[in-house]
């Protein structure tokens, strides 16, 4: 039995393209686009796959805050804004950011929260992200974010 197991292990090591040992760990980060006045399909937020070994959420979020690699994307938060605290609770993730009142408008803060929330959804599998920044407080779930207008009217509503 042991010999059989050892043989299988050796086979898996030596066979090229053996996905078990050669598959890369990737992480999905969500960033806003630099220019987003396009058609319906594009939306304001785009994802970026990054090579990253599994790590803690604070580590991954600090990696996220460095900014995107791809051209056409930008960081949702200015450089002066950082994550002060990260808490992973059973039903949510709580993020505490430094005060953004003077550096982001309400709409920009909403966009940043959407990007952070989508990233946390992908990293942790959680369904809720609570973001606090000074007096701003948002509880974000996937279903309250509308990034595309794909509403198709009925025949009567079309002119």
């Amino acid at each position: 039995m042991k010999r059989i197991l050892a043989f299988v292990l050796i086979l898996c090591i030596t066979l090229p393209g053996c996905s078990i040992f050669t598959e890369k760990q990737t992480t999905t980060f969500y960033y806003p686009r630099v220019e987003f006045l396009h058609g319906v399909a594009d939306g304001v937020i785009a994802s970026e796959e990054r090579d990253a070994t599994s790590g803690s959420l604070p580590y991954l979020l600090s990696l996220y805050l460095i900014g995107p690699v791809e051209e056409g994307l930008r960081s949702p938060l200015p450089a002066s804004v950082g994550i002060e605290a990260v808490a992973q609770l059973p039903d949510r993730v709580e993020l505490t950011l430094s005060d953004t009142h003077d550096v982001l408008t309400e709409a920009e803060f909403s966009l940043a929260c959407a990007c952070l929330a989508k990233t946390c959804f992908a990293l942790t599998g959680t369904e809720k992200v609570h973001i606090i920044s000074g007096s701003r407080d948002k509880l974000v779930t996937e279903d309250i974010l509308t990034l595309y207008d794909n509403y198709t009217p009925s025949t009567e509503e079309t002119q």
Partner: protein
Amino acid sequence: MKSQFLFAMSYVTITVVVLLILNIYCSGISQRVFYESKEASMIEKCQLASDEIAALEVLNPATVSGIVSQMESLKITRLIVTDQSAQVLYDSAQQLGSGSYALLPEILLALQAGSDSPYGYDIFSWDYHDGRMDSRAATPILTYGAVVGCVYMTEFDTAQGALIDSLQSTMMRITLVLALVVIVLSLTFANTFSRRLNKIMASMRIIQEGDYSHKVNLGGNDELTILGNEFNDLTERLQTSERKRSRFVSDASHELKTPLASIKLLADSILQYDMDLQTVREFVGDISNEAERLNRMTEKLLSLTRAERDTEEELEIIPMAPTVRRVARMLQQTAQKAGVQIHLQLLIDTPVLILEDDLYQIVFNLMENGIKYNVNGGHLTVRLRRESDNALLEVSDTGMGIPEEAQSHIFERFYRVDKARSRASGGSGLGLAIVRAIVQRNRGEIRLHSEVNRGTTFTVSFPAFDTEVDEE
């Protein structure tokens, strides 16, 4: 590759490219017109709604819903009202609840709106596909200059979309039909042109093989027809030239054969028969005369060949009187023997541009003829005259004259009015042909006036060159 194909394809390519460019341009223009019209309409509606909502003291789902319901039908597909954080306050499609965030491009840009925004205050975008025009517009809701929310509208217009579609498809159909017509016409024209050109080329091949009588008939009334007619003229001249050459060869060989035959006959007679010395001397004398005649004819043929060839020698401006006097001196004895008096009227002497040898040949041949074909006791008068810009040389005799039917042939080679008399006087029939060739080569003209039994006058005219010339 055939030239007709190249011609047709280049014409078709240019036309099709131009048509396509026009098609694309017109299509773009029409879309642009629709776009600007739709933009103005949508922005106006957004601003109307924005102004109404801006009047509210408090913006919440209830108040916004209330004010929207009071607005007259905006004839739009969807209306979304958000607060300044893009949180939905109202959605006419009832898809987005009041706690959700509408992070749509137009809404986010409108919320960023301001004088420093590259998009200004009003945002508009559109997308045209599948015969439908999807328009989106957003305007910020401003209260005391501050952005407090956003009005977002969408409109799906199939009527205008259908119009754009229809216009584009009509233009494309017109383009295709025009392109087809151009292709057909180009190929037809190229084919017709090529066919007619091939006719000319086929005729050229027939001419090359020696059939100069062949004519090409192209029909039509264009440049190719002119080319065909010119070609026919050319072949006719070739044919005439060929005929003349044949006749000349035939005449020349006949003329040369005659004295040779005489010489042979006389020589054979001397050899075959026993003759006394006196008779032999007579026969030998005749042989000498025929040889002399042969010699003269050969010299005249050579003269004629030289006269008809373009000379490369430099011409000179010379008066005619000295040359006339010299010829008269040369022929004085001949004239005396023939009983002909020579009269010279050379007071009006105008210089002409000519080689002296050519002038001598002209004067000599004309005066010699004037003596040969004169009567005993007759007169030969040589006159120099001036007629506007021409210098004239007139040689008149009181001889037998030239019948009218012969006058048009008198300058032809070997032509003689009276063959018997001409041969007796040593004529070859080439003298006047040589005169005409030389006159024409020197840009002159020769005319004749003759009456039977009264005499003949030859008038040669050259352009006058009025410069001072040293007298000989």
